[in-house]
């Protein structure tokens, strides 16, 4: 498994990853952080159909993210 940083929108349904960094503005980062997207947090892609919004499970809760927002969250894949 590679250890490079990829955006969360490029992960497939069912893949797990660790949050590394954000490319979005401060306000959006702040909202994401309070929902549990902090560096080091484990995320699980619950649904990603390659278009439209995706569902990501973080800290036990499901969060819908627009594709644009998801593209700005950088993660590292975790090998199962």
């Amino acid at each position, binding site marked *: 498994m590679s250890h490079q940083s990829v955006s969360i929108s490029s992960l497939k349904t069912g893949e797990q990853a660790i949050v590394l960094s954000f490319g*979005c503005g*401060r*306000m*959006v*980062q*702040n*909202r*994401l*952080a*309070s*929902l*549990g997207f*902090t*560096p*080091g*947090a484990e995320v699980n892609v*619950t*649904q990603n*159909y390659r*278009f*439209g*919004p995706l*569902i990501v499970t*973080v*800290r*036990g*809760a*499901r*969060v*819908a*993210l*627009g594709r*644009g*927002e998801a593209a700005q969250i950088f993660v590292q894949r975790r090998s199962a």
Partner: protein
Amino acid sequence: MSECHEIAVVPVAQISAGLPLIALAGQPNMGKSTLFNLLTGLNQHVGNWTGKTVERREGIFRYNGREFCLVDLPGTYSLTANSPEEVIAREFIVRERPQVVIAVVSAAHLERSLYLVAELLSLSAPVVIALNMMDVAMQEGIRVEPEVLAAALGVPVVPMMASKAIGVRDLLRVVEGVLEGKVVSQPRVPEIRADHRQILQQIETLTAEYVPAPYPPDWVALKLFEGDPEVAKMMENVLPAQNRAALATILREHDDAFLVVASGRYEWIGRMVRAAVTQPKIGQIGLTERLDRWAAHPVWGLFILAAMLGLVFWVTFTLAAPVQDWMDAQLIVPFAEWVGSLLQNAPLWVQGMVVDGAIGGVGSVLTFLPILVVFFAAFALLEDVGYMARAAYVMDNLMHLMGLHGKSFLPLFLGFGCNVPAIMGTRVIDSWPARLLTILIAPLVPCTARMVVVAFMAPVFFGAHALWVSWGLVLMTLVTLVLGGMLLNQVLFKGQRSAFIMEMPLYHIPNARTIGLLVWQRSIAFVKKAGTAILAMSLLVWVLSYLPEGDLNTSFLARFGQFIEPVGRWMGFDWRLTVALITSFPAKENAVATLGVLFGNAPEAGLAEALAASFSTASALSFLVVTMFFIPCMATVAVIRQETSSWRWAGLSVLLYLVLSMAAGVVTYHLAVWFGWG
């Protein structure tokens, strides 16, 4: 402190002065409203937080012969100033100093929901945790041990199932214990990492002595470290120049500190819940995940949504339409006759004003109540079950075309019932441009009142094709809604788009009380409107149609209609259709009533024949198109003004729809004539 009074919170209402003050805090979808409704029932007051369009709910409840005042704080994920809701919640806790803050957390989302608790504890709020949704957690395979959690956090934890009214007594007993000093908590306040603690200490040294009361200095330092804009603004005004510069340097060096603080809180939460929570076994699939494979699927989800909407409309009209007819025939008409007989000896104009003006106008609006009640109930049910987030999710792609996102879909859908709650419902949208855009396009959703006009006129002119014409009109407004949204987004907001970040709550059994209260409050608001604004406007229209000679055909209203008839003629209207259109401003369905009066109070069958004889198909089609697009009704305009706090947007909306409807009318009429329907 001049910056602060705009976010100041007014004291609780007079009636509850002197009672112990309890605040209810929690993230969205934690069952906070359910608990609030359970405790206060109808003994609650719904208003707005001063100067904000954020709903403020407070109420009184009784326990052990004592009364308590309960304030429902807005649902927020954190207490950092990302939104007005967050500022309101924390200002209330700091300034009003509630004696107990009940933090509602969900056992099914324990980690995430304790984030707000971490913030509350940093504020030194006296917290009691209501560990709600134990049943939902069980359904998803999660087990939480309340005693272990309480021991770890050092604050009381009460397990609950608010939707089944289980655990409420225990909660109140603990709350009372805290008030009487019998239950003492020793909360473990989250700390931040050692290397950052030093920086935090520096910030506190620079600011502590200048922090205005009643803000806790250590909390202010933490919020400055997190880069909170409101706190930074407050301190900028009180700090001496030297400290301000030193503070700015520190904050510049650590401008990503909010991530450090947030991570720190989650690390702390991780330690707190480690012993208390048993996660589901790997591979165990919860109910929500199974349902979402269909409900949130990009293709099947849309089919399911379409089916849901169809079902809501079907239920609404099959259940409510007969009640509406019954109300009209058994209540409104006999009531009007009864009042008429009481006024037998009164002057004719008094009889006319009361019976035709007041009762006729308000009565016809009130007969919509059954339709709205059923519609609101269906909507509230879908929302309470957790389905509405899925509807927003699958609609996100389509809403993107307009620069909006999924959350805008919900208020627009509510607009099919009535545009007024739709515009109030835009409060769920987190960014102001997106919210404003949704408010501007919401009147394009055809409400039940407009559908009544269509339902009456279409069969008269199109006979067997009436259904297709009606569908065509609805489709036309929805296509216009999408195109108009795209256009307005480009013109007003330069095509910018707000972030779509939305929690997908777990599905759960709906709570009848929550739904009932929601329907009750929305209906009451509607009835109040009928009793005030619509009553006034109905009377005004009646007076204008009566004076000066007591004959509509020579009245001021008719003269005005004749005066602007040349404009109406572009759209194929004579003065009567023009007047009917104008009187649809107080309430859309008035159009039919006005035509009834203008054609000599003919019974409805007679009116249909008279209309068919008087107007061409082209004129009728044009009239229907204009009705669909015409200026939003008076109540809608008033609520646009209220929600945008500006006459400018309300005025723009009126102008926009006036131009749109007339343009559409002119095009429709001339096309129809060209097709030979003139």
